[in-house]
Each structure stands twice: as structure tokens, then as C-alpha cells.
């Protein structure tokens, strides 16, 4: 194949996979057009599922599969895709980085659009540097921590990172901007603008959310993402060269030089164009050893060479590549960090001793000790949650559980017959459950308690039955009792007072969400009593 065609093949592939990633991200939501046949669903509640394979990129990512195998001892569904990628990497090098990885594509695009360096300085910047060993440190630390039962891979894994950044920061922030724009138009007195706003919302709301979505620590996720994009001004694809643990893993696996860069020393005029366009700092120029573990197979070098001194060849003879240049420090440091992380992570006692009462995990979540060996913190469950209840944690799950999912009932609540989060979790940290199981077992995520000092009827302020009205269990976990309370001037007044029956309460949090006392409701759900934990039971 001609070099020109190879470069275009790469661009098309990058464009296709980036588009696919964004499309699947947009489809990671409660389907908008679902029409159940009502004459057949008269008795049981239906499970609503997303028909697109929105977990595809997580299955394709071998680091996700490998880390959950090491830490949680389980093979994720569709792990075969990751295995295929690893297998191909052995022969073709880091083709995943160059052809598929959507974060790589975005980095590529950003570094290409506005390189900060030019000419000689760019050539010098694209020489292999010791800093590139850092990604091996990251990889080793993450994998060793995984073996020692703390899976932090998702913090640095490019697919998880990109999904989290886009779903929890970029999309909601665009959504907030758009919705305030549409609100302004809807409030105008010009009818045409009203229609325009309505039409715009109908078109864009499926992607950017119907009401403005918001996520705890969303600003921080967004800031980190901007920072990663900014790093491309220092070095092209800085993230891919220096930081990416998946890149490191694929580099380690690029063992057999089936695809090699053939250099013709005699034709070379030392113009340096190949280095100038090299994305991975893989020493393409003749005279140096080409670094197959750093090369992301972008084919730029052979494409730009005016003398045709460089060419990629498929050699049908297996010869072992040079081992990746990790350096002893990166390896030792990685081991040290990997060993210390799980212990540091558990020092705050959130995992072993007692969990934070605010740590309400999604329905179907596995027990906490197992949860932190699996959760990738990718944000998929948070993105699909129709009420925006699932949020990334800050400190509620301790350092070990940073950015893992947690329900915040003032943001949303868990819908009684919704089981979407478990059905999308790529790892199975949240089990896939059916509506029947959720209701009939039942799966409790916490328990509600009434603050009588704040409660309107309990404090003698006003009649209110909002929590009882919304309680979805049958019979209702929140019940009312007619009792006398005293008004301010001591006059007796009959009120319906709410009580919680802990046996029936599943902790869905709709009571807290709808309570007229906003922000810090008079009825609140805490994680105590969640059915996933044996330690955290209230009732006998």
C-alpha cells in the first residue's frame, strides 16, 4: 500500500472511531423513543434497556479488562475485544493508539491544529526523552494496586477518562449554556422565538439533557480535561507519550516486529521532517534506532519524507522487538507506588471500618470491598441516570473510592422501576438487575429518616404529606398517623404525621428529593440498611 493511502486510512479510521465514540456517548441515556405495548404490560413493570452497544469502547480497551481480571478476578463481558486488541498489538505495535483511541485522536487533532513550536525546536521536542518512561511507572503502579485489591485504573485509563470528561463536564456545561439560551428565548414575547426555542430543545435535548444536568466535582473533571488538552502545546500528544497507561501496556505488548520502519540511510538528507511530524517521539530519522514501543503508527514520517528514505514494511518473519525502555526507576517506583496505594486508600477507614452515611451506591452495586476492585469511575452510570441522582464522589468513599458513583438525593432520586445503571456498567460493579428483582427482593440502597424539627406537620407549621404521597413501595414505607400537635398559641391541631417503616423503605430518596424543605430536607436517606452490605444492616 502506498504511504499516502496509509495516512488517509489512519485519518478515516480515527474519524470513524471518534465519531462512533461520540455517538455511543450521546446514546448513553434513557432511550427517548420507547413505546411499550401497553396492552401486554398490564401486570409487570418492564425493563427499559439501551439498544446500542454503548459499552463497546470499554470492552475494546484491554486495560479495563486486564485490571478487573487482576483485582476483581472476573472477566468482563466482551473482554474478547480487548484480547483481540492485545493480540494484534503483538504484531502491529500501538496501532490502537494511532487508529482507534478517541482520546488519542482528540490529542492528535489539538496538537496538529496549533503546535506551539516550529521548525528546529519542534524537531528537538520530538526526540525521545526520558520523561516517556513515566507512563510505565503509571502502568505498573495501577496494575500492582489492582492486584492488591484497589482498582484505580479508571482514573488514568484513556477511555474512562475521556468518557468521564465528556459526559460529566463537557456535555453538561454545553447543556447548561444551551438551556439558558433556550430559556431566554422561551421567555421572550416574540412568538417566533418561542417556537425556535422549542424546536431547538427538541433537537438538542436528547444529547445535552432535558433539564440542565450537573455533577459533583464536574468542574474539576473539566479542568483536568482542559489541562490534558493544553499539554499538547508542550509536546504533540503529550498524554499519549508520557502519561497514558494504556499506551504503556500496548507498548509492552508490541513484541514482534511484523510491522517495521525501514530506513534508507543513503537517501536521507537529514532534513528532520520525519521527526518534526512524529507524534510519538519514536526516533524515525535514519541513524537512530526506531522505537516500536513508542511509535503510534501514524505513518507521518514516511509520508513527509521527500526522499522516500522511510517506508513501513510488513515482514512475515517473527523477530523479537527491543524491549520497552522503562528504566529501573520507573519500574521500582511503580512497584512502590502500587504497593502503597491500596493501603493509603484504606487508611481513612471508609472501606474496612464504616462507610460514610452519604455513600449511597446505585441499586445492584456489589459490596464495597469488591466495588473498589471493579469500578472504573467511567461515569457511564452517572450519564444514563434519568434523574441525575448518580454523581461522582468527592470524599464520601474515601480516597480509594474517589469519583466512584454515589446517589445524591437533592440532585435526583432513584426511580423505583428503573434499572438502567446496572445494565450499562461495563465491569459489573453494578450488577444488572431486573425490575422484578429490584422490587420484590427488594434491593435497598439505604433508609429514610425524618427530622421532626424540620418536618412541617411535626413542627406544627403546616399540613404536608408530600413524602408519603411520593413513596413508591406498596404498601408505602412512609405512613401517616392522625395526631394532635400544638400550634404556636397552644391550641391543639390535628395533623397527619409521617413515619417511616424501615422494613419497607428501600432508600430510593424520592421523599428527600420532593420534600418542600430544599437542600437539607426534613426526610433524608442515608446508606444504613443497604442490602449489599452485611455489616450495614439496621433491622434484625
Amino acid at each position, binding site marked *: 500500500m502506498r504511504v499516502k493511502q496509509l495516512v488517509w486510512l489512519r485519518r478515516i479510521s480515527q474519524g470513524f472511531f471518534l465519531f462512533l465514540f461520540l455517538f455511543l456517548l450521546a446514546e448513553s441515556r434513557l432511550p427517548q*423513543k420507547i413505546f411499550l405495548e401497553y396492552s401486554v404490560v*398490564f401486570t409487570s*413493570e418492564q425493563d427499559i434497556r439501551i439498544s446500542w452497544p454503548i459499552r463497546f469502547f470499554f470492552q475494546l480497551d484491554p486495560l479495563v479488562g486486564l485490571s478487573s481480571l487482576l483485582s476483581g478476578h472476573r472477566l468482563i463481558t466482551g473482554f474478547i475485544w480487548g484480547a483481540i486488541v492485545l493480540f494484534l498489538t503483538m504484531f502491529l505495535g500501538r496501532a490502537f493508539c494511532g487508529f482507534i483511541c478517541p482520546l488519542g485522536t482528540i490529542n492528535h487533532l489539538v496538537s496538529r491544529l496549533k503546535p506551539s513550536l516550529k521548525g528546529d525546536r519542534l524537531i528537538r521536542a520530538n526526540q525521545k526523552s526520558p520523561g516517556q518512561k513515566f507512563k510505565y511507572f503509571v502502568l505498573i503502579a495501577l496494575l500492582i494496586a489492582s492486584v492488591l485489591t484497589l482498582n484505580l485504573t479508571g482514573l488514568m485509563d484513556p477511555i474512562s477518562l475521556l468518557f468521564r470528561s465528556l459526559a460529566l463536564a463537557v456535555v453538561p456545561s454545553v447543556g447548561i449554556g444551551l438551556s439558558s439560551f433556550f430559556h431566554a428565548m422561551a421567555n421572550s414575547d416574540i412568538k417566533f422565538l418561542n417556537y425556535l*426555542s*422549542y424546536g431547538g430543545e427538541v433537537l438538542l435535548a436528547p444529547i445535552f439533557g432535558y433539564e440542565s444536568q450537573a455533577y459533583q466535582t464536574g468542574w474539576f473533571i473539566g479542568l483536568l480535561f482542559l489541562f490534558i488538552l493544553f499539554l499538547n502545546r508542550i509536546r504533540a500528544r503529550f498524554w499519549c507519550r508520557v502519561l497514558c497507561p494504556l499506551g504503556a501496556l500496548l507498548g509492552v505488548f508490541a513484541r514482534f516486529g511484523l510491522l517495521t520502519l525501514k530506513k534508507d540511510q543513503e537517501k536521507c538528507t537529514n532534513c528532520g521532517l520525519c521527526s518534526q511530524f512524529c507524534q510519538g517521539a519514536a526516533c524515525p530519522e535514519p541513524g537512530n534506532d526506531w522505537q516500536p514501543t513508542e511509535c503510534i503508527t501514524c505513518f507521518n514520517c514516511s509520508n513527509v519524507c521527500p526522499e522516500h528514505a522511510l517506508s513501513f514494511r510488513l515482514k512475515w518473519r517473527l523477530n523479537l522487538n527491543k524491549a520497552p525502555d522503562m528504566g529501573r526507576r520507573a519500574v521500582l517506583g511503580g512497584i512502590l507506588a502500587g504497593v502503597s496505594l491500596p493501603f493509603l486508600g484504606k487508611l481513612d477507614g471508609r472501606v474496612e471500618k464504616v462507610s460514610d452515611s452519604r455513600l449511597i451506591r446505585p441499586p445492584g452495586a456489589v459490596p464495597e470491598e469488591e466495588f473498589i476492585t471493579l469500578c472504573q469511575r467511567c461515569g457511564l452510570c452517572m450519564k444514563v441516570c*434519568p434523574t441525575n441522582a448518580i454523581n461522582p464522589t468527592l470524599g464520601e468513599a474515601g480516597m480509594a473510592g474517589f469519583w466512584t458513583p454515589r446517589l445524591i438525593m437533592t440532585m435526583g432520586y432513584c*426511580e423505583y422501576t428503573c434499572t438502567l445503571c446496572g445494565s450499562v456498567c461495563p465491569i459489573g460493579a453494578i450488577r444488572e438487575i431486573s425490575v422484578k428483582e429490584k422490587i420484590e427482593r427488594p434491593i435497598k440502597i439505604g433508609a429514610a429518616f425524618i427530622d421532626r424539627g424540620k418536618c412541617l406537620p411535626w413542627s406544627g407549621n403546616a399540613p404536608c*404529606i408530600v413524602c408519603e404521597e411520593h413513596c413508591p413501595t406498596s404498601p408505602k414505607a412512609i405512613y401517616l398517623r392522625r395526631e394532635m400537635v400544638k400550634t404556636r398559641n397552644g391550641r391543639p391541631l390535628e395533623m397527619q404525621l409521617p413515619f417511616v417503616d424501615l422494613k419497607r423503605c428501600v432508600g430510593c430518596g424520592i421523599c428527600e428529593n420532593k420534600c418542600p424543605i430544599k437542600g437539607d430536607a426534613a426526610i433524608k436517606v442515608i446508606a444504613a440498611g443497604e442490602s449489599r452490605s452485611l455489616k450495614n444492616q439496621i433491622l434484625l
Partner: protein
Amino acid sequence: MDLYTPVGRRETIKKLLYMGGSILFANLLVDSLPSSLATKLGPENSGFIVEGIGKQKGYSVTQLVRRVFDAAGGIDHFISRGDVVAIKPNISWARSPGLAATTNPEVLRAVVELCQEAGAKKVRIVDHTIHDARRCFAITGAGRVARETGAELVFPRSSLMRKMKIGGVRLDTWPVFTPIVEADKLINIPIAKHHSLSKLTLGMKNWIGAVGGSRWVLHQDINQSIVDLARFFNPTLTLIDAIRIMTRNGPSGGKKEYVAKKDVLILSNDPVAADARAALLFGKRPADLGFIRLGKRWGLGTFDFRQLQQKKVHI
């Protein structure tokens, strides 16, 4: 008309006189017409209440809806060609129709189809749901009705809520779901079910699902809030779905045991009378329900059925 020659003073005065005279004449003409022509024709002239009962086993709900409307004088009496019709079912809970927490989709479909046959320009299904709207639309069957009939199912976006003057006793201004008020005709199709504060949720209470804002504070004076909203929305017709009613654990229900099959539809242009008739199905006296008493007091209607044209149909 010649636009180039200037109009003289005399000409101007003459034209103004002609115009004034014709306005005066038109006014006189309208005033002298018999009052029945100036107001509405047919049975809406006075209050009516039609009760439809499905007696046969396996009767068609669609047919029952049609019979009820026919008994009231036909849908054409209420819906004119080219009208924008807003239909307000109660689809607030993501519960399947058999649990009687939401309006029966077959009733909804029949009313949508009737309006379309009467030549309505657009039929909207509007409800500000409590559970996530997409899930409500899917599970209650409203989504399917909208897709198959071509009615517009409006997503309750917050941009569609607009503060309006309610002018009630309790509520002065409140954010209102605009597609409801911007329609020519409004049909209320609630389901009859139990409620722990207002005792029952019927037609008038359905308007709590037509407003936005922090509507859960309305419960602090629920009866007056219901009546204020019912006066503000003032529907053309109320059709209470009592095919299945929920007798306990309302308004969300959730179990088959709470559902009673009554096979009744109540159609009226008097919102108080419709609610009062439906209350009897639960074995409750209309006068015992606060919002029905208040509704009568504020002139919304009556629960003295003798004042109305009463009709019964059954299939």
C-alpha cells in the same frame, strides 16, 4: 384608490363619519340578536353529566368513550375544525396502566382520535409528570398512543413553564405549563384514585400536574389550591376515567389488590359535578370532600345532579 391626489378636509370628515356610523350599526345589530346565538348552542348551554357503563364482558373501551361523547351531543359540539386541543391525562407515575395510577391509554387514544375526527388542527397530550417524563410516557402507554395517533406528546421542559396570573384565593401567580393555556380547547382526562391528603384525586386535582414551580408546597392548603387551579384552567370537558380505580395506597398504588374495576366513564362540562359523581364510586359523599365543597362555593359547578341534564349509556 388614487393615492396621488391629497385627501381634503371635507373628504376626511365624510369618511370618518361613514366609519363611525358603520361601527355603531354593527354594534346595534349584535346587541339585538337573540342571546342564544351570541353564546353557545346545544347541550353546553347548560350543565350536563353523562355516565357510561361497560356492562358486557370484554366490551370495547373505545366504543364506550364514543357512546359517551355521542350522548353528550357529539364531539363536534365541543371541538371545532381547526382547533388546537390540549388533552391533560394523568400520566405522572411510571406505572403500568393496569395498576390504575395513570389514565387508561385506551381512553386517551379514543379521545385523541375523536378530536382528530372532529377536525382538530393539532392534538396535544400534556402532563407535567412526577417521575421522569420519558419513563412515564413509555410505561403508561401515552408514548405509544401519541406515536400511533400522531398526537403531540409535549415533554415538560422547564422552559415551557411560565409565570402567569392565577388570580385565585390562595395562588396569585404561579408557573404554568404553557401548551395547556395556549390551546383553543382543553379536555381533562383524569383517573379516579385514592389520595392521602385530599382523600381522592379526580378531575380538579389533575391541574396540579399542569403547573411547574415548587408545586409540593401546594399541599399545605390543598383544597383551595386545587380549586384555584381548576378555576384558572377551566376545561371544556372533563372525562373521568373510572374503568379501573385505585382504592388504597394512592396516588402511586403499585399493587393489583388496590385496583377495583368499575367500568365507568363520567363526562361533564361541570368539573364539580364530574368529581362529585366519581366520589360516589368510592362510597364517599361529595360534600365530605373539601375541594368539591370549595369548588361549589367558588362557582365552578354543582354537586346537585338535578340541576344538570343527566344521561346514562351502557354497552
